[in-house]
């Protein structure tokens, strides 16, 4: 029995104890539960990976993408790119669909909230390339896709879909008229 336990422990240990901070140049975001992590992985369409419902080119930027980590076969979920702009990671990873890459960024782990293998990607490169690509292209891609929204201020104040939602349902979602007293009081 003791031997069996030791074998099971040895089998389980790589995934449990592996530290991916070696060689990482990730910048801190001073987040609770963050840890720098640089690792090799394959970029996959998560829906395809989990269910077999696949699309050409991983959905071409429309589907959430994952990082199937080489060291332990864990599916890491990049939730965020490197910009402080309410932007995800799909635009950054989509050009690497199906490719083997190296990424650098921050892993987020918070057992109280169920956060495990959540990732903020800061840079990415093909496994065999020397050159890194910074994971900060989202706002430029948004500007290309929304030329009519050109103007001053951050993208999220100009985005047509967001503006339509706020016009219809207010900033709190309870309705523009219903939230008026709250907004008035908040800014008094």
């Amino acid at each position, binding site marked *: 029995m003791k031997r069996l336990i030791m074998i099971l422990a040895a089998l389980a240990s790589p995934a449990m104890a592996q530290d991916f901070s070696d060689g990482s140049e990730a910048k801190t975001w001073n987040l609770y539960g963050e840890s720098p992590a640089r690792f090799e992985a394959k970029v996959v369409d998560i829906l395809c990976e989990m269910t077999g419902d696949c699309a050409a080119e991983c959905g071409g930027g429309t589907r959430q993408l994952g990082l199937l980590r080489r060291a332990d076969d864990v599916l890491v979920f990049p939730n965020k790119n490197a910009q402080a702009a309410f932007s995800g990671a799909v635009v950054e990873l989509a050009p690497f669909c199906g490719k083997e890459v190296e990424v650098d960024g921050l892993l987020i782990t918070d057992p109280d909230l169920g956060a495990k293998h959540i990732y903020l990607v800061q840079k990415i490169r093909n496994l*065999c390339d020397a050159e890194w690509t910074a994971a900060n292209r989202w706002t430029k891609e948004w500007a290309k896709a929304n030329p009519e929204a050109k103007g001053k201020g951050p993208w999220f104040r100009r985005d047509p879909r967001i503006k339509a*939602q706020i016009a219809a349902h207010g900033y709190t979602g309870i309705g523009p008229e219903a939230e008026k007293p709250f907004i008035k009081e908040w800014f008094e």
Partner: protein
Amino acid sequence: MRIIAMSLCLLVSGTFGAQASEGERVQIKGEIIDTWCYYSGVMGGPDAVTGSAHHTCALWCSAGGIPVGLLAEDGTVYMVLKIKGDANSAGGDTQLNLASHEITADGILYKRDGLNYLVVEKVVTDHGITNLNHEDYGPIPGFAIPDPTK
């Protein structure tokens, strides 16, 4: 030397695993949330980054391609991969329209490496925004609502 390095790269290529897993039919009631703010704590504690207090930010994040999740009543988060036949989980309209809404979802649950993934086949009930916490927390983040006096 570069040829040797490239050869080594080719040798180690194609070794990643890939597997589709069995799902389980479930029905879950919960709130459609923005997972980054929830998991990272970047805007504060979990109670502040849900509901009407966080609605504008939830719109920003959903439109920005950050994955949405279904936060169940027991605190479990389900990463939503597809909803009502719409696989556009990176900024799609279906998920944007449900930001901060409490829904009852019927679909297939998949689990891998400690995370829950949900394919919502049907929104059985859209309860609307029921977590009216903006009076308690104010807008999260504070600049979510522009100052109307400026």
